[in-house]
């Protein structure tokens, strides 16, 4: 009278097939190099990619004769006009995407974007404050800090907002995403009001400076701006990469990460500072360029999985390529007029954000 139970046979479940990390990073590095070469040659004065390659090889001292001639005029256009701008695109994309990836890890949510939660507008508000009132209110300080005044102010503005949002949205080690996004809305509105006020009292010249902040632009970037941005962004990206393993662990939850031996406080402080550093300095020079920090990390997660050891460097490479490409489109699509790159990234990024939200909305009870 014993019932015969069928032997349990585990169903063959489809495993996750992902490309290896090295393959993904290699492919993205190649993509970035190609994008840089093509973008450097594109514009009113066109330079063929192979000529760009020859000029760049020549510049870094590899003077092999590959049978490609270039003119001094091409060389000077490339170095004086194109390259600073393209390289700034690389820094912008890499910095924003790496900061975005790290912040999304810390907040344990792919929607935690430095632009959305107000870090960029906090930085822009601080920058606007310095442009309009800096010389009047604290002339000594402005003169002492020189060209560092603006990036420093933007960094502090970004830092203040990041800390505020984190404090508002976390309680007993738990993070509330709705609180975080709503706080971001409030901060964005507040910063918008502040920037609006400064616009109102600004002189004509200051006004031109301010408009460009709200839309973002890589126009008029010179080597001196690059010299300030490059070390800051490099530091931020390296910091983000060094936090990859603890950021993986913290995806389990703050308490769980603590049990695994992660110094959670140090990690939080590190990610907040690196985000403020990258976003602040970049906003100071390029204005608000949104959504790169949202799109690039998420595309990496889709392609290669959520491991931050791949996502952070990969997002930096992809973000750089995307920004360089977007800037190339921005300056050529309506030539000789120029479209602010921030409009373009928002055009691509906002629908992307909505698609992400649709995927998550079930978790939110919608």
């Amino acid at each position, binding site marked *: 009278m014993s019932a015969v139970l069928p032997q349990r046979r585990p169903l063959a479940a489809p495993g996750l097939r992902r490309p290896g990390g090295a393959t993904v990073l290699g492919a993205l590095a190649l993509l970035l190099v190609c994008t840089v070469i093509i973008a450097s040659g594109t514009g009113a004065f066109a330079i063929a990619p192979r000529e760009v390659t020859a000029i760049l090889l020549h510049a870094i001292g590899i003077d092999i004769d590959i049978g490609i001639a270039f003119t001094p005029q091409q060389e000077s256009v490339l170095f004086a006009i194109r390259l600073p701008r393209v390289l700034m695109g690389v820094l912008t994309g890499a910095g924003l995407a790496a900061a975005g990836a790290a912040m999304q890890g810390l907040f344990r*949510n792919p929607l935690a974007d430095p632009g959305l939660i107000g870090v960029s507008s906090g930085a822009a508000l601080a920058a606007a404050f310095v442009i309009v009132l800096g010389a009047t209110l604290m002339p000594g300080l402005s003169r002492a800090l020189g060209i560092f005044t603006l990036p420093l102010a933007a960094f502090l503005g970004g830092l203040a907002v990041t800390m505020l949002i984190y404090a508002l949205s976390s309680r007993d080690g738990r993070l509330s995403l709705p609180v975080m996004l709503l706080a971001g809305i409030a901060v964005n509105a507040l910063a918008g009001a502040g920037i609006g006020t400064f616009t109102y009292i600004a002189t004509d010249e200051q006004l031109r400076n301010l408009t460009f902040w709200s839309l973002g632009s890589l126009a008029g970037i010179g080597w001196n701006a690059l010299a300030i941005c490059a070390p800051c962004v490099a530091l931020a990206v390296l910091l983000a990469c060094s936090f990859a393993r603890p950021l993986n662990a913290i995806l389990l939850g703050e308490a769980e990460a603590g049990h695994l031996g992660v110094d959670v406080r140090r990690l939080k402080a590190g990610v907040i500072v690196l985000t403020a550093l990258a976003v602040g300095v970049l906003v100071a020079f390029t204005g608000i360029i949104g959504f790169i920090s949202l799109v690039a990390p998420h595309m990496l997660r889709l392609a290669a999985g959520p491991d931050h050891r791949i996502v952070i460097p990969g997002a930096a490479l992809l973000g750089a390529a995307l920004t360089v490409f977007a800037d190339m489109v921005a300056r050529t699509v309506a030539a000789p007029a120029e479209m602010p790159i921030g409009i373009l990234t928002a055009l691509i990024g906002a629908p992307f954000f909505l698609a992400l939200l649709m995927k998550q909305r079930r978790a939110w009870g919608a």
Partner: protein
Amino acid sequence: MLTARDLSFYAGSRALVDKVSLTAAPGEFVAIAGPNGAGKSTLIKLLAQELMPASGIIELNRLPLNDWRALERARMLAVLPQESKLAFAFTGLEVALFGRYPHCTTRAGMLARDDRRIAMEALAMADATHLAERDFTTLSGGEKARVQLARVLAQLWTPCTVDGKRQPRYLLLDEPTAALDLKHQHATLAAARDFARREGDVGIIAVLHDLNLAAQYADRLLLMQHGHIAVQGRPAEVLTAECIEAVFEIKVNVMRHPDSGAPLIAATHVNAAAAGTTPGIVRCAGMQPDGEKFANARPVSGCT
């Protein structure tokens, strides 16, 4: 030895854990049971350093818990949480590999082949080998729990040596069987117990709701009530009808497990009218005094 002395924790003015002392020796399986709100989970969270006690001290291998460096502590003490909050699409194997975090010392953070082997063995021990390549976020609650068990087993897999001295390891389990089917309730506790026996120097403290599971797997059982440890001892000593009635306020029949002879508990048949009424406070032998609450209580006759 994992030792807690006079731990107290308050929510407002209410003591959730009130001067609790307990120890877990290497190789020992200690179960904590008790009614809802007795302070079991708070106690585990205090031991896991998720909550800071208002007073009292916790020592891990003769050193205050706070004095260990975080990574050293993580090689000696692993915690299985009640529920999993991981919402990113890692594979089961990747989640198990998180357990190797405190062991990975290389700067680049690349995992050794050893870690991969250990994670696979831990998955096998948790009956989760077939989940190694699956997306963690698509697993059922029970499957997630097994992968998480593999993660904490992987964390304690290798003997821990600090300053040239081998250190016992401890595993804290907070209701490890809550999401599991019958087979995996037993599989999980058996895996934890077998792991502790095999290693010899791994102690386990588990919060368990099911007294029958506690009776079968625990070497020592603590029954908590109102933030105190009401009674503790070998399961056979503690799990008497009188003690269970005193602590859980429900009448039960205690039988013997036909195979092991361990106590087997079933609630007595309660008719609807009687259900919900609270029996008078009773005590059983071996029960520790519980302040004023038991001041006027008299021992129930026949309780041994």
